[in-house]
C-alpha cells in the first residue's frame, strides 16, 4: 500500500517511470525510421527500374528520316497506262528508289557499293512510295519529295548507339558508309522525327519499321475476352458462395480449391489451355480468343477471392436493415450488398486484369508468341500481346531492337498505370459511407 501512495505523490516524469516513457518514445521513433527506410528503399528500386527503361527506350520514339526526291516514272509504275490497282500494287517501286539514290550519290560506282548505299534507306522507303501512289494515282509521272525512314544502322549511328570512334573492323557502319551519311547530313537531308510508325505498325523484321500497334491490339482483344469471361463468372461465384451457399464440407472444399488455384503458376494454365482449348475444342492457335480464355482462368481466382472479401466487408447492419424491411435474400444482395461491395470488387477485378495484361508464360504455350506482322482485326486472327512482343524484341539481335524493347515496356507500363488509375477512380466514384 505504501508503494502505491509513493508513486502517487512523485511527479509524473521522474525516476523509473520517466525512463520507461523515454524508452517507449525511442522505440516508436526507431519503428518509424525503419518504416521510412523501407519506403525509401522500395521507391529507389522503382526509380532505378523506371530510369533504366526510360533512358534506354526514349530514343525509340524518334526515328532518323531522310528527305528524298522520287520521280514517279510512268514507264516503271504503269507502262500500260491502265491505272489498274493490281498493276500499281505490283509495280517495281524499288527501281524508283534505286534511281533516286543513284541521283543523290552519282559518284558511287560498282555493284557492291551501289547496294550498300541503297541500304542506307530502309526498305520502308519503297512501301511508303507505293502507299502514296496507291492513295493518289494522279501523282504518277510527277516528282515527289518525301521523308523516308533511314536504315536501323544509320539511325543507331545518329542516336550514338553505334560509335564513330571505334576501329572500322568493330563497327557495323564502314568508313565509306560514314562518308555517305555525312554528305547526306551536310546537304541537310537528314532529320530525326517523331516515330509515328512505332505506334501505327505491327511487328517487322526491320527494327525501323517495327511497331507496337499489333501487339497492343492483340492485348486489348485478349483482355476484352478475359474481362467478359472472368468478371461475370467471378462475381456470380463470389456472390453465390458468400451469400447463398450453405456452409458445409463441400463449400469449404471449393473455397480451398479456389485459394489453391490462385497460387498455381501461370504456365500451368497455358498448358491447360493448350490441352483443352486447342487440342480438345480445336480453337485456332495464336488467337486472342484462346489467350483471353486462358487468362480468364488465371484471373478468376483473384477476382473471386477479392470479391468475397469485399462482400464480407459489407456491415451486417445493412443486411439486417434490409431483411427487416421484408426484402428477400436476392433483394438484399442485389439492392444493398453487391452495390456496397462494388468498389472492392472492381478494384480486385482490375488488379486481376492488370496481372493478366502483364502475363507472358501462358500465352507462349498457346502460340501467341508467333511473328505476326498484320494487325489483328478479330478474336480469331493470329495475334501477339504486349509482354510477348517485349519478349520477342528482347530476343532479337539488331541493336535497334534494344531501344524498342524498352519503349514497348514503357507502353505496357503506361497501360498498367492507366488501368490502376481507373481502379482508383472507380473506387472513389462508388465509395459510399455508412
Amino acid at each position: 500500500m505504501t508503494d502505491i501512495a509513493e508513486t502517487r505523490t512523485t511527479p509524473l516524469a521522474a525516476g523509473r517511470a520517466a525512463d520507461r516513457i523515454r524508452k517507449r518514445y525511442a522505440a516508436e521513433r526507431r519503428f518509424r525510421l525503419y518504416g521510412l527506410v523501407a519506403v525509401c528503399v522500395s521507391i529507389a528500386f522503382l526509380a532505378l527500374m523506371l530510369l533504366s527503361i526510360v533512358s534506354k527506350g526514349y530514343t525509340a520514339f524518334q526515328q532518323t528520316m531522310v528527305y528524298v526526291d522520287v520521280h514517279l516514272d510512268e514507264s516503271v509504275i504503269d507502262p500500260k497506262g491502265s491505272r489498274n490497282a493490281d498493276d500499281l500494287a505490283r509495280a517495281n517501286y524499288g527501281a524508283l528508289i534505286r534511281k533516286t539514290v543513284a541521283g543523290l550519290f552519282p559518284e558511287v560506282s560498282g555493284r557492291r557499293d551501289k547496294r550498300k548505299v541503297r541500304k542506307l534507306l530502309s526498305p520502308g522507303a519503297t512501301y511508303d512510295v507505293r502507299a502514296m501512289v496507291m492513295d493518289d494515282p494522279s501523282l504518277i509521272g510527277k516528282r515527289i519529295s518525301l521523308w523516308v525512314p533511314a536504315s536501323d544502322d544509320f539511325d543507331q549511328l545518329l542516336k550514338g548507339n553505334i560509335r564513330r570512334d571505334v576501329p572500322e573492323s568493330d563497327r557495323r557502319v564502314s568508313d565509306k558508309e560514314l562518308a555517305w551519311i555525312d554528305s547526306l547530313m551536310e546537304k541537310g537531308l537528314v532529320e530525326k522525327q517523331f516515330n509515328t510508325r512505332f505506334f501505327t505498325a505491327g511487328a517487322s523484321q526491320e527494327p525501323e519499321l517495327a511497331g507496337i500497334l499489333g501487339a497492343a491490339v492483340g492485348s486489348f482483344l485478349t483482355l476484352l475476352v478475359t474481362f467478359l469471361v472472368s468478371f461475370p463468372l467471378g462475381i456470380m461465384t463470389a456472390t453465390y458462395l458468400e451469400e447463398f451457399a450453405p456452409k458445409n464440407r463441400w463449400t469449404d472444399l471449393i473455397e480451398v480449391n479456389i485459394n489453391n488455384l490462385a497460387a498455381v503458376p501461370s504456365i500451368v494454365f497455358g498448358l491447360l489451355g493448350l490441352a483443352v482449348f486447342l487440342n480438345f475444342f480445336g480453337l485456332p492457335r495464336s488467337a486472342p480468343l484462346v489467350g483471353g480464355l486462358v487468362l480468364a482462368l488465371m484471373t478468376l481466382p483473384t477476382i473471386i477471392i477479392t470479391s468475397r472479401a469485399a462482400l464480407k466487408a459489407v456491415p451486417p447492419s445493412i443486411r439486417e436493415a434490409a431483411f427487416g424491411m421484408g426484402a428477400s435474400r436476392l433483394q438484399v444482395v442485389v439492392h444493398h450488398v453487391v452495390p456496397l461491395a462494388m468498389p472492392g470488387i472492381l478494384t480486385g477485378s482490375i488488379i486481376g486484369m492488370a496481372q493478366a495484361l502483364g502475363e507472358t508464360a501462358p500465352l507462349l504455350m498457346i502460340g501467341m508468341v508467333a511473328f505476326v506482322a498484320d494487325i489483328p482485326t478479330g478474336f480469331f486472327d493470329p495475334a501477339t500481346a504486349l509482354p510477348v512482343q517485349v519478349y520477342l524484341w528482347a530476343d532479337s539481335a539488331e541493336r535497334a531492337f534494344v531501344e524498342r524493347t524498352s519503349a514497348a515496356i514503357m507502353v505496357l507500363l503506361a497501360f498498367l498505370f492507366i488501368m490502376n488509375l481507373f481502379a482508383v477512380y472507380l473506387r472513389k466514384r462508388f465509395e459510399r459511407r455508412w
Partner: protein
Amino acid sequence: MAAVEQTIVETQPAPVPKITARSVDMYYGEKQALFDVDLDVAERHVTALIGPSGCGKSTFLRCINRMNDVIDGARVEGTIMLDGENIYDKALDVVQLRARVGMVFQKPNPFPKSIYDNIAYGPRIHGLTDTKDELDHIVATSLEKAGLWNEVRDRLQEPGTGLSGGQQQRLCIARAIAVSPEVILMDEPCSALDPIATAKIEELIDELKENYTIVIVTHSMQQAARVSQFTAFFHLGKLVEYGATENIFTNPTDERTQGYITGRFG
C-alpha cells in the same frame, strides 16, 4: 422442467392480444437460448422486454419477425401467433410477415442512400404504390409520424447517413412505418443515443402506440417504466415475470425480478 414462476396481475381490462407465444424454445445450434416462453403481447400497447445481458430478450424479439431465420443453425420450437396465425407455419411467407412486423435496430442503420430512398425502399419492394405521388405521400407521412419531417423536408435527396444519430434512428423508425406494419419491434433503439435524442424517441414511441403494437427491448429500467404498459422480465432464457409495468416495478412477485430492478444484479 420446473414450472416457470410467472404472474400476470390484472389491473385493467385485459387488452386484445396481438401476438401470442406459447412454449417457445429457441436454439442456436446445440445451445438453447429460450426455454418455454409463454407471452401475450397486447395490441396497441407498448410491451417492454427487460433483463440482464444474454437473457434472451433480443432473441425472443427476433423470433417475432423471424429475423433468426438468417442465422445458420437457428431453430425455433413452439408457436408464435400473430392475429391467430402461426408465423412459423411453412405456408407463411416471411416477406409478408416482415411487412406486417417491422423492426428498428440497436444501432441506427440507414441505407447509404438518400433520405427519400431510405423511406421509399419498403413501399417499393412490396409494391405498395403505383405512382410517384403516392410514394411521395407515403414518404412525407412516414417522416411526419416519426417526427422528422420538419428537420429533413428540404433535404430529402441528401444521404441518410449524414444525419445525426438520433435523426438516423427516427429515420429508421420512419422507414419501418412506411410499409404500414401492425407491429414494430425495437431492439434497444436508444442505446446508441444521447439523452435528448432518447427523449425524442420515447415521446415518439408514446405517440406510435395509438396505431401500432410495439415491443421494445431495453436495458434501461427507467425507459421501460416510462414508455411501456406491460413489462416482461427475462432471465437466463426464461420468462420470469410478466405483467403491467407499474406492478412489475412497484410490486414484483419474483425475487429475481426484484433483484434486477433494484440493481442487485444485471
